[in-house]
């Protein structure tokens, strides 16, 4: 009876808002808006890209809302299937990729195609969080060893594609879960030492072009036609933006087509040139708030699964943002990593919004437990 007194529109509104964390929603909408502004500037010749991205955003929001409605307990059930499917897809791409030479990262599904590595970005942390959750009370070092194996297998596949950038990101996210699950500091220290010692070995395994990218970072002028050109031009874009920026749609670097990939991986160069240091600080602040909110959700989460997911997703946002901005401003090598919520691209956006949906789901469950 009481329900009837509430106007129907408000009821729908309430239902829609249920389980949605307004802080997270506002932050990612702000970020997406900045992205659309930069995208419009980067592709001013063909506004179709902006409309496309708007459609992507709409779809991503729906996905986020749906995921936010699913309690973490149910989400956990997706962990093993998602991981297994992700692995199978990576295997398929490794096999089918050999046939269709040159399209090794992509898998054709009907009319569209996608990168199976994208699935792993969330499937791996899901799997690891589920695994630690299940073995919560009996956690030993060997569980960490199993977790490491669960991490290494998909990452090895992605490395072999070869897509070193995505591999590093997936590995970082998975490692985040292991770190938050409580891997002892001593082992962490030992691993760090080993990693440093193994660096020369890794160097030996790199493809020639990957080595060149790293060397190019140290001296961009050695490769003026290839990756060095990208670094030189994007650094000029950032630097010439100055404190206040050249103003929206006034960036010359972007509009004279000096910036490569300017609507995807290098969109930060466009943004930075037009909005300057102030704009960059705004962006960093938004990311910091987003990550902080995620970490707070993690700290208050009711279950091991919830807190590991929330913490590792926050760390994932950080890694992507840091690697991308570091690359564009010339302190990290050029790898194909999009800037979260700003770069053009439907799949990446979908992954990010689903991740936010998971954060919301974790946050919501905590409230239910408390009340």
């Amino acid at each position: 009876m009481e329900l009837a007194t509430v106007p129907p529109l408000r009821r729908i509104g309430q239902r829609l808002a249920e389980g949605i964390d307004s802080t997270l929603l506002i932050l990612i909408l702000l970020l997406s808006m900045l992205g659309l502004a930069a995208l419009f500037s980067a592709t001013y010749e063909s506004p179709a890209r902006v409309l496309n991205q708007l459609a992507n955003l709409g779809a991503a929001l729906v996905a986020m809302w749906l995921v936010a409605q699913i309690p973490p307990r149910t989400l956990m059930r997706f962990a093993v299937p998602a991981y297994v499917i992700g692995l199978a897809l990576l295997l398929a791409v490794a096999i089918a990729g050999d046939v269709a030479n040159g399209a090794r990262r992509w898998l054709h599904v009907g009319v569209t195609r996608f990168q199976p590595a994208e699935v792993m970005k969330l499937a791996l942390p899901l799997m690891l969080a589920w695994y630690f959750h299940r073995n919560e009370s009996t956690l030993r070092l060997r569980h960490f060893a199993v977790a490491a194996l669960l991490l290494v297998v998909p990452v090895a596949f992605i490395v072999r594609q070869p897509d070193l950038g995505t591999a590093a990101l997936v590995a970082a996210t998975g490692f985040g879960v292991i770190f938050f699950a409580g891997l002892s500091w001593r082992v962490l220290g030992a691993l760090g030492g080993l990693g440093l010692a193994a660096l020369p070995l890794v160097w030996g395994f790199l493809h020639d072009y990957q080595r060149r990218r790293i060397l190019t970072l140290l001296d961009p002028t050695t490769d003026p036609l290839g990756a060095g050109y990208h670094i030189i031009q994007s650094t000029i874009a950032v630097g010439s933006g100055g404190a206040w920026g050249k103003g929206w749609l006034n960036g010359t670097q972007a509009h004279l087509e000096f910036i490569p990939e300017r609507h995807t991986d290098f969109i930060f160069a466009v943004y930075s040139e037009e909005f300057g240091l102030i704009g960059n600080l705004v962006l960093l602040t938004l990311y910091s708030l987003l990550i902080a909110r995620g970490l707070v959700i993690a700290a208050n989460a009711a279950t091991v699964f919830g807190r590991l997911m929330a913490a590792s997703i926050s760390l994932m946002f950080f890694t992507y943002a840091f690697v991308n901005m570091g690359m564009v401003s010339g302190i990290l090598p050029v790898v194909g990593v999009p800037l979260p919520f700003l770069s053009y691209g439907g799949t990446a956006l979908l992954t990010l919004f689903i991740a936010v949906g998971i954060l919301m789901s974790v946050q919501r469950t905590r409230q239910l437990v408390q009340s």
Partner: protein
Amino acid sequence: MLLAELRNREQEMKQFRLRVAIAGAAVLAAFALLALRFFYLQVVQHSVYQAKAEENRISIVPVSPNRGLMLDRHGVVIARNYSGYTLEIFPRRVGNLEQTIDELAELVDIQPRDRIRFKKLLAETRNAESLPIRNRLSDEDAARFVANRFRFEGVELRARLFRQYPFGEVASHVTGYMGRVDQADLSRLEAEGVAANYRGTDYLGKGGVEASYEAELHGTTGFEQVEIDAAGRGIRTLSRTPAQPGNNVTLTLDMRLQQVAESAFGERRGALVAIEPSSGGVLALVSKPGFDPNLFVDGIDPLYWAELNGNIDKPLNNRAISGAYPPGSTFKPFMALAALQLGKRTPRSTIHDPGYFEFGGRRFRDSKAGGHGTVDLYKSIVVSSDTFYYQLANDMGIDAIAGFMKHFGFGARTGIDLQNEALGVLPSPEWKQARFRRPEQQKWYPGETISIGIGQGYNSFTPIQLAQAMAALSSGGAVYRPRLVAHIDNARTGERRYFEPEQMHQIPVRAEHIEFVKQAMAGVIKEGTGARAFAGATYAVGGKTGTAQVIAMKQNEKYDEKKVDERLRDHSLFIAFAPLDSPKIALAVVVENGGFGARTAAPIARAVLDYFLLGKLPAGLRRAAEDEAAEKQESD
């Protein structure tokens, strides 16, 4: 108990929150680092980058290098470049493609096939900056477009170098052809780390020497720094790092010899490989039918492409290195050598040839009904007795045969500097085991050894393997890697790199045995199956005819050429070397469905040897050569 667990939980939670706090601090520290970097770039260094951005009206434009030439052993040009105008469309700058092309068609000659090709390119290449709509414009068309340029935003006239093959179809499988850099090429170039060198390059070698020596021929891309206006149009060139032309590749091939060989083939299908025994240098390499590589130069026209691919003669297939044929009786000299070396026969041992060899209740028929009577080793080669070799193979056994023939390179890639070389099959029990799946198929039956003796059965070799083996036999057992390139020259510095002959191994066989087989092969030409084709030859030559069955005959069925469909007729083969004492050339000829080896393959070998040793040109080519010489005199 409960309390302990609770405390444990609390402990764990504290641990976790500590880690979250540490992670948060790390995030802040990293972002602070980024903020510092931004501050450095945007405030401290701002004026520097501001200036650079101002200056950054400079665009870097790649300058594609001239592709190296391809020459034959006498310096005759086989592949060169010529410059021509091409009309290119920048799809991203053009509003309505269809309409633009229609308007262009009013000015310049644009055929439906040009449109088809353009559409195909557009569909195939993502993110391409510009695509050609019309190549090789006439001067008039070019002038007409220039006068109307203002009407066409996003369409530009460019001068470009095109590849040209003056000999057309001749040696097309050696030269290969040029094709557009496609997505697969791009990722390969990326993986090889040379993608930057291909900025500005639209075409690369596909097949033949163009592909296998792509790295030599391509050259190094240069670049120009061009000042551009606010709309991105070039105003003037500021600095220039010139492109370095590709290296010139000189082949061991003799183009005239190649022409002689190809014209001797006429319309027949097949392959010929001629090798210099002392070096492995390939003198001629024919695969018929061929194709005209000039038609690939500006992006192959889809109609011709469909024709080439749909043709049942498979003109794109290089039969000389990737076609495998049963050797037929050309295998016999090698069998004879094996028999001598392994002590299974002596020059004096004889057999009686009744016209068949009986084994396990089955008769293996000789090609001559009634047989050749008493046959010794010499006569067995000269008259090509099947019975002799049925018996020999049976006496030797498959393991001994396979073990000896391996030395000659049968059933293994020769390593010639071309891509897509086939393996061929040197049958052995191990090979059969690996080749088949069902156990009853995997077993080697002694009866199968018998037909191997006359080069039938599972045996199948590529023409280049046959030629290499012939060269090895004629030169006393030295096996050289066949190769097409003699030397590579840097046109700018004049530096020349020779490709030294590469001897892969020496076959352990006694010189007197080789001499015996060579004499027997000379007998084939003087008094045996090759006598008619070489009637009146003034040089000493050794050879062997061969006929390879395409379909298996039933035991008592008689092969009747007229009754058999043309494509199922026997292949005709011939191997030869000359001169007898110090061979300068060894060759193998295969004519598909050519019938008896003596009839179609041997005359082709004769024409090649006549030119190579005596300089004698066949009638058709003689006239062409005379015209050429007359022209030369006039211009001198």
